[in-house]
């Protein structure tokens, strides 16, 4: 089961990378961009009997290690 864990800084936490990318996009002329947040996607290939179990496992992994709950949010996405 392929599962993606998407990790982003929480809304209240300043994302300096996002700001830098926003400035670069504005320099290129993409003036319509109002905000950029840079996160990371962690792709997992999980051996599980069904989708629910795979999601549950990915949740545990995200809480334990993949995201830092002090500063980051995560969402889990089933790829296939």
């Amino acid at each position, binding site marked *: 089961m392929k599962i993606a864990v998407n990790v982003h800084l929480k809304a209240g*936490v*300043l994302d*300096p*990378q996002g700001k830098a990318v926003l400035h670069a996009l504005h320099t290129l002329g993409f003036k319509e961009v109002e905000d950029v947040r840079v996160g990371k996607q962690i792709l997992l290939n999980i051996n599980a009997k069904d989708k629910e179990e795979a999601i549950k496992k990915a949740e545990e992994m995200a809480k334990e290690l993949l995201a830092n709950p002090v500063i980051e949010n995560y969402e889990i996405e089933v790829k296939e």
Partner: protein
Amino acid sequence: MRVGVVVFPGTNCDRDTKWAFERIGAKADFIWHNEKNLHKKYDLIVLPGGFSYGDYLRSGAIARFSPIMNAVKEYAKKGGFVLGICNGFQILLESHLLPGAMTRNENLHFISKFHHLKVINNNNKFLQKFNEGDIINIPIAHAEGNYKIDEETLKEMYDNEQILLQYCDENGHYLNPNGSIDAIAGICNKEKNVFGLMPHPERAMSDILGGSDGIKMLEGFIS
């Protein structure tokens, strides 16, 4: 006084740290991260600076799972003194031995320079040789020193005297190099036996190399 300096793959301030403690009269050993136990009786365990596990995922996030960290946690739980410098501080945060988290410096740069710090609280072993309000000069060298903590915990930390050092200018006025909340540079836990700071006291041990304010910091653990 015996100090254990933990070495992770990617640690690069281990030798400076060992030397610094020896310079003030302590005995110091390296402890490899794969060790499961502390084999000697230590007065202080130091997690030195560097880039443990290449800073993969988040700084300090992988080092937390090194075998030695279980022993360090046990040691801290029993009241043993632990000091995390720079990446060592990040490891203590990721290990939940200290509250909060680090993010990238606000200006995205790796900052490497001497920086002034103000002693906010000296009611602890680490800073006992200083007076509150003292301005000291210690090098910083980090890309992720932007300390974050929720408002509620931050207030508790002030109440419990856990906020120890703040970045400032040479006159003690607010100057924040990396965007840390309240320009925080160093903290401790509630029990005041686990300390973390981003600046490098082991690099401020000699006036001909720019400053010696680090000596008084490390000496706090000796007396």
